[in-house]
């Protein structure tokens, strides 16, 4: 199956909304990348830069009671599903006002009130958790769906096959979104992954699509089909969204890695496929917005990020005496 490619008619407002949502992720991540490189953040930071069209194309059509689970590269999914910028930044800064009160950090941002089961430090973990949340939605009969975001590397965890089998058998309302960004940590795709990931759905009889993950409209349309299928009780879809990780696996990796695993030329060439300028071009050419509109959005987002950073910086660190109180039962 491939997507039709036909443009759905989105209002100017919707198109600008997509743009804003992608740009928010980009600017937050640029900020956190800078902070991390400067040594101002406590833990490891994995940037989503270059993959924004996937998170936004899918999450923009989800309801608050739909579930998402994500991976270590989870800031983008958190924001795309409606997570708060300030609460995210404060968490990554390790502050008391963060969404997990400093207990989780970058790799664990979660907001259950918005259906964000959370980022995850264990590669592949979100796949089974989302399958369970989708089962709960099926039991509730509320039409909610679960979306698991994971990488091409995670697709090599056996749990993907297990989840495809049970979710197809039980017709669970779940969508497996593999963001194939070309790398499993420092290993290029072809060195650790055989065949195509979307094809892994075939033996189970699960729906599957391979799409251009840098094309927001293509992502949106594919997700719309998968969500419909899920809400209609027709079972899971495995989506392989082809994209590219602009930044390193982890911020600062050049300071400790002994070698390189991709060339500068490759990175530069792939960056030409950046989803955000491509989308800007599309709306400008379609006359759906002016450059002034885009500039205004950028200014607003920049202010939002600055406000979030100020909020985080002004926030205290959590008090060790309070830690875990009420959260750890044994």
């Amino acid at each position: 199956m491939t997507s039709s490619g036909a443009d759905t008619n989105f209002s100017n407002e919707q198109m600008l909304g997509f743009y804003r949502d992608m740009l928010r992720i980009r600017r937050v991540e640029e900020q956190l990348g800078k902070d991390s490189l400067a040594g101002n953040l406590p833990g490891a930071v994995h940037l989503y830069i270059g993959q924004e069209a996937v998170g936004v194309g899918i999450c923009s059509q989800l309801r608050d009671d739909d579930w998402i689970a994500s991976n270590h590269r989870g800031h983008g999914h958190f924001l795309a599903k409606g997570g708060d910028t300030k609460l995210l930044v404060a968490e990554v800064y390790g502050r008391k006002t963060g969404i997990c009160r400093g207990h989780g950090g970058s790799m664990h941002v979660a907001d259950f009130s918005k259906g964000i089961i959370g980022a995850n430090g264990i590669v592949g973990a979100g796949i089974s958790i989302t399958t369970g949340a989708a089962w709960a939605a099926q039991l509730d009969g509320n039409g909610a769906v679960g979306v698991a975001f994971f990488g091409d590397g995670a697709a090599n965890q056996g749990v993907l096959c297990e989840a495809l089998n049970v979710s197809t058998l039980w017709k669970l309302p779940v969508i497996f979104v593999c963001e194939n960004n070309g790398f499993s940590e420092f290993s290029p795709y072809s060195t650790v992954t055989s065949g195509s990931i979307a094809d892994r759905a075939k033996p189970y009889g699960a729906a599957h699509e391979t799409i251009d993950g840098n094309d927001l409209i293509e992502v949106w349309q594919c997700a719309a089909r998968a969500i419909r299928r899920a809400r209609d009780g027709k079972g899971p879809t495995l989506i392989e969204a082809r994209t590219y990780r602009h930044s390193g696996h982890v911020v600062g990796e050049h300071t400790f890695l002994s070698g390189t695993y991709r060339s500068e030329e490759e990175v530069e060439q792939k960056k030409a496929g950046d989803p955000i300028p491509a989308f800007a071009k599309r709306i400008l050419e379609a006359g759906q917005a002016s450059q002034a509109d885009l500039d205004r959005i950028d200014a607003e987002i920049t202010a939002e990020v600055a406000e979030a950073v100020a909020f985080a910086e002004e926030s205290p660190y959590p008090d060790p005496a309070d830690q875990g109180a009420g959260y750890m039962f044994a």
Partner: protein
Amino acid sequence: MAKKRMIQAINETLDSEMAKDPKIVLFGEDVEISLFGDTVGLKDKHGAHRVRNMPISETVMSGMAVGAAAAGYKVVCHMMFGNFMYTGFDSIANQASKLRYMTAGQISLPIVYMSVFGGGRSAAAQHSDAMHPMFMNLGGIKVALPATPADAAGLLRASIHDPNPVVFLQAAGRGGESGEVPDGEVIFELGKAATVHDGDDVTMVAIGAMVRPALRAAKRLAEDGIGVDLIDPRTMVPLDTEAILSSVRRTGRLVVVDEARDLCSAASHVAAVCADQCFEALKAPIKRVTVPDLAMPYSPPLEKALLPNEGSISATVRDLLGKPAGVEA
């Protein structure tokens, strides 16, 4: 003697052992470029067939180690972070640890499951567990916890030579882990403790990365006339109970420092063994300095408050001896 970082000591040991024994293979996620630096360069030296990157597939990885070992190879299986041992736990817990026993000794499985473990780096709860007590409880698996680069070299060499599975948990990457390593092929017998500081007032058993702050505390306490007999067990399975018991019989007091959560920590086991076997020698209750029963948090002040440190170790000893800081000993 030369000053080395722990990862360097590990790297050199792997290198020299692989050079000697073509049956040794090493695999794991990104072992070629090496996240921690401990396996860097080994593929170029020993060949792509012996040093291999794995896909992110811990379930098959830990099981492949069992199969390859059963079929005659000596396998070093690098699991990266200790928490990923959970992802590959089935073959460790149900297969590696039990097959020799269940087949009445038909096979031995020379496997080293190695990883970096423990807190202190704001890596949060899913990358910071100190899970050595869980492995101790399995049985059928030795558990090595190097505290210094010399320990790392000596214990890793012994682990590779050992015919049975060993979990080798390195506390590397938490800074300050450089130290002197003897020249040549250093090897430390598994199950043989080291006394790293002498004293007559209290026996202190410090496990893995806790040896360093414990030693600082012991030196500081010595200035105040408090003698700490500091023992690094080096391996928790097998455990050199004789070294610990004979020290406790002499000092009459025991403090165990462990970075595991308190509940069922390795410290609990050491305490139990002493309570059981040298109760009559004890002049005071046995004390454990462990991690409170929470999980490792991300935010630095939270994490710092949980980990044992020189201050909390010294305070425990002073309390035990009724000699608060600042009072003449």
